[in-house]
């Protein structure tokens, strides 16, 4: 680890912090276009964060210290996740700090904290949201890990950096297992980021909420942090998906020129990904909450299938 | 010197037994009972020391023969006899105050107790197989009177069954003894020596196998009835449940041993005459069957003393199985188990006696919360039960460990049966004892404080053996096991 490495790492983190709301804004804009609405400005998420940071925090009487700590923890977790996922370069100092399994762990930690915070006030919606979030979580986590396992088996490593290097920098090969894994990953990402068809970030109809139900009592800077963390999560998932399935263009070292060169490609990939997300959200309707297990179960099965396909077709060459 | 102790050991119970028939109503009679038992125990202890140091001895010509095997039984008998007499002091006083016993009955109890000890000691030490039979029959007669002490319909019924079943059993044993004599006479000639065990064992190889086989069947069935081997056991639960508790303790702890001792002496002869383990196989078969039957009986019991009577049957089955396997290790284990069973079971009966007195019933569903009434009795019953169920670190486990491992080595087919039975027995007994010991109750304390020392003395010994068998004891037991061949 050296200074330039640290700087590169810092650069990646800062870029994530600032690109993430932009991605959220971009998805919102695409959605609006696709639904023939007047689109909000691209920078709308930034305005909102700014506004929320200015506002006073209104805490419920029953709120405990955990309620106040949770947004920071969730935010911290997402920052960490963004630091680990290779966005611009695979060889950053924090890359070995956590592999894909640990990455899933980070998301889990954030989920537990936000669910606990949701239960803290003691309103019916809070615990409802908490339990639904945990429901989605325990269904999505195995599927996500199966996806990761498939890729990890191809590269013989769980380290994200190594996976990306293997897939991006070696000779091109077609991995049918990745197709299964890719679909499964999409499913999981939708669920994890509270997107249609599992959840609807725009809804405020209580009975259908998951994410919104949990953060109903948050306001001011707390809410801002949570929203920001949500954007970061979307960003991290997108980058992870890109790294696993479309890894081309990520720099191999921590030199700034290489990283800077990787930025445009990343932006391109993200904007395509965001558009596709908007498409998916538009063509699908929100499911009943108890259809979510089926949805995620399908994702899980697909991922396992991918794994088996990998074992069956690709190991004995 | 040793012989003086021997004479003393036989004389004290006989004389005090006869004396107590006369003076048994005096206030100091219970103390006399204890003192006599103490004297018997002390003389037997000194005798034991002498025998172990100097080897086997004859007494009264060749009529009595004491070696390290029977001296073991003798010591256990006199020791449990002593503790039982200590225990029965306050117990019988309480019975008297409850109006369940009158003074003449107490007199009968004390004298018969001493005479019973006498007959057992004679049975254990005699060298003559005929006298052994006579002493066994006499022991039955004395205990019949003890079992029917309460004169209630139930106790009379129990005593009647005891008398008839054991009488018939012993008649078979007599037939076996006659056949044994017949076989021996062909070798030893028509001298009076043909029933002396020491002579028989010298010529055991020449005894006619056909006769010996028939003889052993009769002897095994005969004495086996008294041991409580299934399906000859039917008298045993009745007699244990309906007699006074001290009597149950000595029946279970001592009389069964003596009967088993008789079988062992016969087995040594049969083994010498018949090759191929005929006697051992029969004993193993009976032992296993007894064990299984008793184990399944246990779960249907309602009366606490009856349940522990079945537990005695179960253990006798296991011990018979061990002796049936034969060899130094199994014999050692059998002897150890027998000793441990005597100590533990009598301790349990002491505790049960106090418990039933306190609650006024023998029905287990009405006995609750002993730990509340008297923690010592509660713990005694709990620990005793755990010990008898073969929980380490108690000595019964040490013996069961040796039996099981030996069985695994030589008779692996028997192990699943053994273990099933032990498991079922555990579930049954523990499931019934636990609610008796634990929980709430509203019973009142008794006028006379219980004699709890014997219980814990026994349990402490059992615990010690489980963790540490002194080398002296090991040598002694090994020597005795060797006697059995």
């Amino acid at each position, binding site marked *: 680890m050296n200074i330039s490495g640290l700087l590169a790492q810092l650069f990646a983190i800062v870029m994530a912090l600032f690109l993430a709301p932009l991605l959220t804004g971009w998805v919102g804009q695409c959605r609006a276009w696709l639904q023939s609405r007047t689109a909000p400005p691209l920078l709308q998420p930034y305005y909102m964060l700014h506004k929320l940071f200015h506002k006073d925090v209104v805490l419920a009487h029953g709120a405990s210290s955990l309620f106040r700590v949770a947004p920071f923890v969730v935010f911290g977790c997402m920052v960490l996740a963004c630091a680990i996922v290779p966005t611009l370069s695979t060889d950053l100092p924090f890359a070995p700090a956590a592999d894909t399994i640990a990455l899933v762990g980070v998301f889990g930690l954030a989920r537990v904290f936000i669910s606990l915070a949701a239960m803290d006030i003691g309103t019916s919606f809070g615990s409802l949201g908490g339990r639904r979030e945990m429901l989605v979580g325990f269904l999505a986590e195995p599927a996500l890990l199966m996806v990761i396992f498939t890729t990890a088996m191809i590269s013989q490593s769980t380290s994200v950096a190594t996976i990306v290097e293997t897939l991006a920098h070696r000779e091109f090969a077609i991995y049918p297992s990745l197709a299964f894994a890719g679909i499964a990953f999409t499913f999981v990402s939708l669920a994890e980021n509270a997107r249609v068809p599992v959840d609807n970030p725009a809804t405020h109809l209580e009975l259908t909420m998951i994410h919104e139900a949990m953060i109903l009592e948050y306001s001011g800077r707390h809410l801002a942090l949570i929203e920001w963390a949500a954007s970061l999560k979307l960003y991290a998932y997108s980058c992870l998906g890109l790294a696993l399935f479309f890894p081309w263009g990520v720099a191999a070292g921590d030199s700034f020129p290489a990283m800077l060169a990787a930025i445009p490609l990343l932006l391109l990939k993200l904007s395509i990904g965001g558009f596709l997300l908007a498409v998916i959200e538009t063509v699908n309707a929100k499911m009943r909450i108890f259809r979510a297990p089926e949805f995620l179960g399908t994702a899980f099965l697909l991922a396992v299938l991918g794994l088996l396909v990998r074992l069956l077709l690709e190991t004995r060459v | 010197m040793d012989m003086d102790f021997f004479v003393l050991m036989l004389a004290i119970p006989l004389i005090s037994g006869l004396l107590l028939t006369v003076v048994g109503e005096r206030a100091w009679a219970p103390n006399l009972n204890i003192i006599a038992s103490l004297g018997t125990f002390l003389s037997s202890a000194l005798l034991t020391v002498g025998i172990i140091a100097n080897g086997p001895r004859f007494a009264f010509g060749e009529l009595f023969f004491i070696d390290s095997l029977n001296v073991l039984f003798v010591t256990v008998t006199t020791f449990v006899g002593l503790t039982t007499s200590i225990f029965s002091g306050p117990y019988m006083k309480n019975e008297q105050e409850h109006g369940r016993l009158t003074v003449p009955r107490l007199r009968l109890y004390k004298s018969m107790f001493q005479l019973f000890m006498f007959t057992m000691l004679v049975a254990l030490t005699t060298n003559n197989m005929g006298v052994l039979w006579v002493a066994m029959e006499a022991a039955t*007669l004395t205990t019949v009177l003890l079992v029917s002490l309460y004169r209630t319909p139930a106790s*009379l*019924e129990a005593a009647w069954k005891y008398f008839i079943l054991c009488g018939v059993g012993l008649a078979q044993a007599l037939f076996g003894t*006659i056949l044994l004599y017949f076989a021996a006479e062909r070798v030893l000639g028509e001298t009076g020596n043909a029933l002396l065990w020491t002579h028989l064992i010298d010529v055991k190889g020449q005894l006619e196998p056909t006769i010996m086989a*028939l003889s052993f069947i009769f002897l095994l069935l005969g004495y086996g009835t008294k041991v409580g081997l299934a399906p000859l056991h039917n008298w045993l639960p009745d007699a244990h449940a309906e007699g006074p508790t001290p009597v149950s303790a000595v029946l279970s702890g001592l009389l069964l041993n003596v009967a088993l001792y008789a079988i062992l002496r016969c087995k040594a002869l049969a083994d010498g005459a018949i090759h191929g383990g005929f006697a051992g196989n029969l004993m193993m078969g009976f032992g296993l069957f007894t064990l299984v039957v008793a184990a399944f009986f246990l779960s249907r019991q309602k009366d606490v003393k009856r349940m522990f009577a079945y537990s005695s049957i179960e253990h006798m089955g296991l011990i018979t199985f061990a002796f049936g396997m034969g060899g130094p290790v199994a014999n050692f284990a059998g002897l150890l188990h027998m000793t441990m069973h005597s100590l533990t079971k009598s301790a349990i009966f002491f505790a049960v006696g106090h418990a039933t007195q306190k609650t006024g019933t023998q029905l287990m569903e009405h006995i609750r919360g002993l730990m509340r009434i008297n923690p010592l009795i509660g713990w005694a019953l709990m620990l005793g039960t755990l010990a008898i169920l073969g929980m380490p670190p108690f000595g019964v486990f040490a013996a069961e460990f040796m039996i099981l491992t030996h069985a695994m080595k030589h008779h692996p087919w028997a192990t699943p049966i053994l273990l099933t039975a032990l498991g079922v027995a555990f579930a049954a007994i523990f499931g019934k004892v636990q609610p008796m010991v634990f929980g709430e109750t509203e019973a009142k304390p008794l006028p006379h404080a219980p004699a709890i020392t014997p219980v814990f003395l026994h349990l402490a010994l059992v615990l010690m053996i489980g963790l540490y068998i002194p080398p002296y004891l090991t040598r002694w037991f090994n020597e005795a096991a060797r006697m059995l061949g």
Partner: protein
Amino acid sequence: MSGAAISFSGQLINLFASVILLLAFAMLAQRRVMPLINLFALQGATLFLSTVVVAVSTGQHHLYWSAGLTLVLKVIALPLILHRLVRRLYVKWEVESLINIPTIMLVGIGLVIIAFNVALPISQLSDTITRGTLGIALATVMLAFLMMITRTKAIPQVVGFLSMENGLFLAATSATYGMPMVVELGIALDVLVGAIILGVFFFQIRDQFDSLDIRHMERLKDL
């Protein structure tokens, strides 16, 4: 050991033994108490005679003692005690049996066959003049056993028990010319004491159950 002529005393002994077996069957079939006791006394007497014959023909002196004991105990003392008991206890004369008599007799014949077969290899080993009677002794014991099983009253059951002792004495004399003296004495003492205790018992049982029917004594059970 083939075809040797049996001496007169041997024939006599065999005759007595057969009588004892016959009496055992008679007891098995007897329906009344008093005749049952008389049959028992008769069996004892036959046993006494048989023992005397053995003693005379073999010159075994202690067998005289044994015969004397039999006479005193089995022929005189025990029947007397039983007679008195029956009178004092007002026992009903009828003896009830659990199974009907013809069936019992059939089972009894089966038992005799078993007993003879079991005893055969052993008696062939014997060189006493009485060797043939061992099978009869065993059969007597078994018939007495059968009687104890089938009778429902206390006194016939005890008579069966005592008759079993007769069979055992017959076995002792037939197989080995009697047991050692100390044992014989001990056995006799036990039988006597046992009989006395039983006598006391009968009174207690009658007091408690108002009857000597042992079917009243079926309350101790696990069913």
